[in-house]
């Protein structure tokens, strides 16, 4: 059981079926960036604290630095590359981005919150965003951008 075993690993990435051969023990983060050519997902800490590596797994935000790619076989992964640019307008205008290192991860968690406003009955936007650290903005711009996007969703039919 010491010899690395290669096998076929398949999952749905941004709506497309992906297949490749490997041991399954590479981090999802590294597979996205270095094997599949999607560098939008960033590495900050590599320990689950900063959220720069956030992707959606079956629609829920997770840290791709703490997942081995074998664990997502047959599941759905969506990265920041799948987010339409117009989905970010409120975050642009509220000052949610300065250096941008945290932004891909912030966008992924923010989209999740905006798409599931029911979550706000039990937790605040700030609580839901606590897994995305930002060294620049002081967070107010991020929180305000999300609040604005939520207001827009509410008023649009």
């Amino acid at each position: 059981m010491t010899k690395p075993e290669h096998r076929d690993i398949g999952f749905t990435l941004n709506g497309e079926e992906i297949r490749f051969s490997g041991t399954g023990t590479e981090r999802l983060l590294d597979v996205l960036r270095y094997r599949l050519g999607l560098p939008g997902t960033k590495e900050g800490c590599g320990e689950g604290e900063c959220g720069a590596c956030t992707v959606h797994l079956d629609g829920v935000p997770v840290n791709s630095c703490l997942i081995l790619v074998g664990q997502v076989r047959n599941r759905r992964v969506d990265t920041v590359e799948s987010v339409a640019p117009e989905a970010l307008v409120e975050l642009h205008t509220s000052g949610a981005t300065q250096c941008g290192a945290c932004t891909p991860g912030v966008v992924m968690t923010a989209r999740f919150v905006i798409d599931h406003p029911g979550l706000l009955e039990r937790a605040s936007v700030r609580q839901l965003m606590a897994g995305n650290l930002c060294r620049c903005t002081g967070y107010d711009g991020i929180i305000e951008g999300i609040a604005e996007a939520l207001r827009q969703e509410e008023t649009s039919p």
Partner: protein
Amino acid sequence: MTMLFPSDLEEACEMLAASDGKAVPLAGGTDLLVHWPQRFEDHGRTFLDLSQLAELRAIRWSDSALILGGGVTYWQTLGDRAVCDAFPLLEKAGRQVGAVQIQARGTWAGNIVNASPAADGVPVLMAYDAVVELVSTQGEEEIPLSEFYLGYKQMRRRPNQLVRAVRLPRRRHDVEVFEKIGPRRAQAITKLGFAATHSAAGWRVVANSMAPTVCRCRTLEGMLEHGSPIRRPEDLMPAIRQDVSPIDDIRSTAQYRQKVFSRTLFHALFSDEK
């Protein structure tokens, strides 16, 4: 390095037995995979992926208990109104484990088997008298969570056993509190914490980060049971000294931990200005 993908729990047990207990069960990976690229000593190991086993992901109810499968995540319990209503401390503690990304992957069973004295899930499970259901190719075994730990990172689970479920008896509680004291509100490792409950089964007071393992505080429970007069936080100190043995470490000091434990417990249970 290799990964094993069992298709059901039975096969997972067989794979674990075939590896002579050497394969490492992998659930959410939020303990095991931290700094993965630098964990050279682990790279040669075989991982047994439990994260897709439907049997382990199930939340079930029996007449007498809530049965959380051994792969149930915090996020699953937070999204289950019946669970949060019947066991509010699961919600209270679950929301304070890391943040959404960690809650979505981290499991209650992983928290138990990781055996950190600072675990936040373990104290609430223990305060609800949880029973750990273990399974292997050799059969099943049940161990009350309060008797599960033998010492720092030592437990009664054998390497060939998997946590199949965590069972919580259904009871009416008239006291349920959980406190986590950390350096900041979110994403912080606990300096000290506790869960306390009261039901017809009596008092349970469970402390974390106060001893080599999360543990029940039997002297405190006895004091509460007998209704000993407690007028100030200091009145709890002799019992606390009996029950726990905190240390000085990078996160806090023994003195701070005992003092703040006495005050937060007093405040939670006896103070009028709750």
